[in-house]
């Protein structure tokens, strides 16, 4: 039986898709079976970030509508064999996804995988509430910036009212993933600090992902950042977060880029 996790934020562009891919890959790299599901109907991007954009034949809506079987739509990752992708539809409109269809798909995925990770669309409308509806826990992706924190607060309210867990009167587990964090600017007092965001949102911290050039580089390459450069700071942050999801207790640190003497001297970034 899987844990169903929704990666959500309210605000767009804070790193939901990056985090879905990176956490999914990090979990799969530990040998667990993982399905990452793109709920952003009409604006799919998880396939692109994972480098599987040319392999999408069927998508979530096809499976939800019963047009094809789940196995026909799941795309196996070329690098980690325990990771699968279920893409969103690029052509259909967002109302094409039915709640009953989502319930069936999540139910089937739950039987086959250790982890099911749902990449939520931005916003607070139907797409976002469908992505969180059947989740067991939520990762709220937040940037240390006022509009992102405000929208996260709103999403936390939705998680406590619109999910099946909440409807049953159970407590929905919500974890904060702080992304694009800049230790230097926060230290100067020019960026909200970790404590500020934690105090305002009052949910437990899953991890801190530092601002890094490696994230853009990973999406350019079509690989989760944990695979494109496993020793980079964001990759280590995501791997630690994945291990915390699995129940390991790992000291909370903000990974920083390790620079060896040579790269310090020449200051250059080597090409891949």
């Amino acid at each position, binding site marked *: 039986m899987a844990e169903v996790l929704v990666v959500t934020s309210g605000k767009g562009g804070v790193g939901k898709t990056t985090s879905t891919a990176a956490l999914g890959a990090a979990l799969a790299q530990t040998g667990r079976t993982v399905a990452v599901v793109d709920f952003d109907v009409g604006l799919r991007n998880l396939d692109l970030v994972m480098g599987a954009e040319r392999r999408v034949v069927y998508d979530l809506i096809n499976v939800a509508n019963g047009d094809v079987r789940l196995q026909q739509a799941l795309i196996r990752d070329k690098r980690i064999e325990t990771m699968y992708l279920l893409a969103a539809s690029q052509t259909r409109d967002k109302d094409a996804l039915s709640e009953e269809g989502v319930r069936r798909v999540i139910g089937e995925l739950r039987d086959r995988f250790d982890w099911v990770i749902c990449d939520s669309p931005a916003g607070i409308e139907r797409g976002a509430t469908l992505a969180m509806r059947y989740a067991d826990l939520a990762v709220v992706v937040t940037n240390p910036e006022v509009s992102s924190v*405000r929208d996260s*607060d709103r999403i936390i309210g939705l998680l406590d009212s619109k999910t099946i867990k909440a409807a049953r009167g159970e407590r929905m587990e919500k974890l904060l993933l702080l992304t694009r964090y800049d230790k230097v600017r926060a230290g*100067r*007092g020019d*960026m*909200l600090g970790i404590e500020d965001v934690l105090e305002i949102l009052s949910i437990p911290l899953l991890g801190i992902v530092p601002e890094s050039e490696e994230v853009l580089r990973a999406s350019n390459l079509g690989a989760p950042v944990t695979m494109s450069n496993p020793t980079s700071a964001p990759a280590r942050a995501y791997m630690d977060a994945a291990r915390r999801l699995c129940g390991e207790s790992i000291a909370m640190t903000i990974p920083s880029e390790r620079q060896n003497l040579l790269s310090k001297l020449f200051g250059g970034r080597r090409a891949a």
Partner: protein
Amino acid sequence: MKIFELLSRRRSAPLARERLQILLTHERGATGQSGLIAVLREEILAVIARHVDVAPEKVDVRVQDGDELAVLEIDVEIPRAMARPRSPWERGGRAA
């Protein structure tokens, strides 16, 4: 001049934090708890307004979620001069 500007520039994060805290207190009241807090706030305001002149934005109703219990906090700010019952002969408006 540049160094002076750099040194005198106020740190912006504390301001961000303060603005968020004020904003979210109100937004949580307006949107959270499936409207319960909004309803409570309206009704509490109506009851108080029957007896004391109070500005609507000075009534703050919120729920602090604890592990086992939630605490309902009602914070009403009234001007000192207004902290007396309104005379029954007054009609609407503020007491002069």
